[in-house]
């Protein structure tokens, strides 16, 4: 329409810059997953606790985060911290935002995983004289992990795609590099097509790898 000529040359010349952005995307996503896993485990334990002062705040945290958009949460964290005089860099704020968001989802995933374990396992563990941490470490987690692994892989793919939102608070990830390139070359359509392909290749490669690992590790009944 209207005499537009597609031209990929300018965009492909800047491919290294885009790949550099993709590296940032991967970096922040992996860190998010690792930290969220720790936070989410604690969250799940709190959420299942019999103590109301642990359970109630954890429940509200999960509900609040899962029912509001990540974009709004990121904005609050990035600009909210300076209201209380703490300066964090864009990257740190982006990471904290992604962790706060994803930990809520992981809390639910891990909780479901632990609850999938039969009650008898707990009772057997206790009757063998295991303490609570020992029970968790040797009995519950190895089994729960099998249940948790598939949804957690999906969550990781989600993190990679959602992390594109940290570009709004000036983290130089793939999405921001794309926006920058689109606005300097004025080749938006070409740029977004290339950026989309990079995202697809990245997420597909990762989800395929995770599937293979999952198959190798969990093939044998534990």
């Amino acid at each position: 329409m209207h005499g537009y000529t597609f031209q990929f040359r300018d965009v492909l010349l800047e491919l290294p810059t885009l790949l550099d952005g993709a590296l940032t995307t991967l970096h922040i996503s992996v860190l998010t997953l690792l930290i969220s896993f720790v936070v989410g485990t604690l969250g799940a334990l709190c959420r299942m606790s019999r103590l109301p002062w642990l359970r109630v705040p954890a429940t509200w945290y999960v509900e609040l985060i899962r029912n509001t958009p990540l974009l709004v949460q990121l904005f609050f964290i990035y600009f909210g911290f300076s209201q209380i005089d703490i300066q964090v860099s864009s990257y740190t704020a982006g990471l904290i935002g992604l962790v706060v968001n994803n930990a809520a989802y992981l809390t639910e995933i891990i909780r479901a995983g632990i609850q999938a374990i039969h009650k008898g396992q707990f009772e057997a563990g206790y009757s063998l004289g295991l303490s609570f941490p020992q029970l968790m470490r040797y009995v519950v987690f190895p089994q729960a992990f099998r249940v948790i692994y598939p949804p957690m892989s999906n969550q990781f793919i989600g993190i990679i795609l959602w992390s594109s939102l940290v570009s709004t608070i000036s983290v130089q990830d793939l999405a921001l590099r794309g926006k920058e390139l689109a606005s300097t070359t004025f080749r938006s359509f070409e740029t977004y097509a290339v950026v989309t392909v990079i995202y697809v290749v990245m997420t597909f490669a990762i989800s395929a790898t995770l599937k293979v690992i999952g198959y190798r590790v969990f093939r044998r009944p534990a």
Partner: protein
Amino acid sequence: MRTRGWWGGALAIACVIGLLVPALGLAGEATPAAQAGTDTLQQVIKKGELTVGTFDFYPPWGFRDAQNNIVGMDVDVAKELAGDDVLKVKLTLVPVPTTQDRINFLLSGKIDVAISNFTATLPRAKVIDFTDPYVVDGVGVIFRKDLKIGDWKDLNNKRVAVTTGSTGEILVKKLAPQAKLLQFDQASTALLAVQQNKADAQIEDYTYTVYHAGRDKNLAFLNKPLDFQPYCFGVRKFDQEWLNYLNFFIYRLQQSGKMKALYKQWFGAEPFHVSPTW
């Protein structure tokens, strides 16, 4: 099951690359001459509607008033254009969400013309066409008062907030290469970053820096506008009749004194001379 997942995915990637790229490539082979028939002027008259892309976040060029109507100087110019003796068509304002979207909205045919304090630059002119300038602005710096910024060089080693794709971003890379750039989608987010000490300074259009430094007593602006920024209407390429029409409209707007009156009304000041003195 497992193998199917693998192949499905591999095929998926092949298809995205295979379908997208050649499809776009093929479309690109259509010669401009084939599409030279598009004449926006005639279409506007036939439809009885003029669709203008403006900003709704950039006072006083285009912004929301208390009732959330889009108003501002660019809006008044658009009203003149639609209500002009010849056009006499209904005016539809399309608020363009970000600065870099103006070109996208034009190219994809969402708007007939962009009147949105649009600086004509040579790189931009490779993709779209610009009319003659209707008003002139400069590039300015807005910064927190506690900083000593007297010149563009002082921005080196400072954190400078810009809007992605703005002329300011390009300029600061050239004039203060050691500045640490922070890119935001919106000018207001960049300003918030300065107000909150996440950035030391923001580069924006001169009128914007004057305006917001006047609002916030903690902020100051650099009284040294840089670069000659001609604001023009943006139109699609190969739309010569429309371009001619708009150029003549702008000439009339200047010559009748209407342009000067509008500028005074919105800025409370005399406009810069549109034609540079050489």
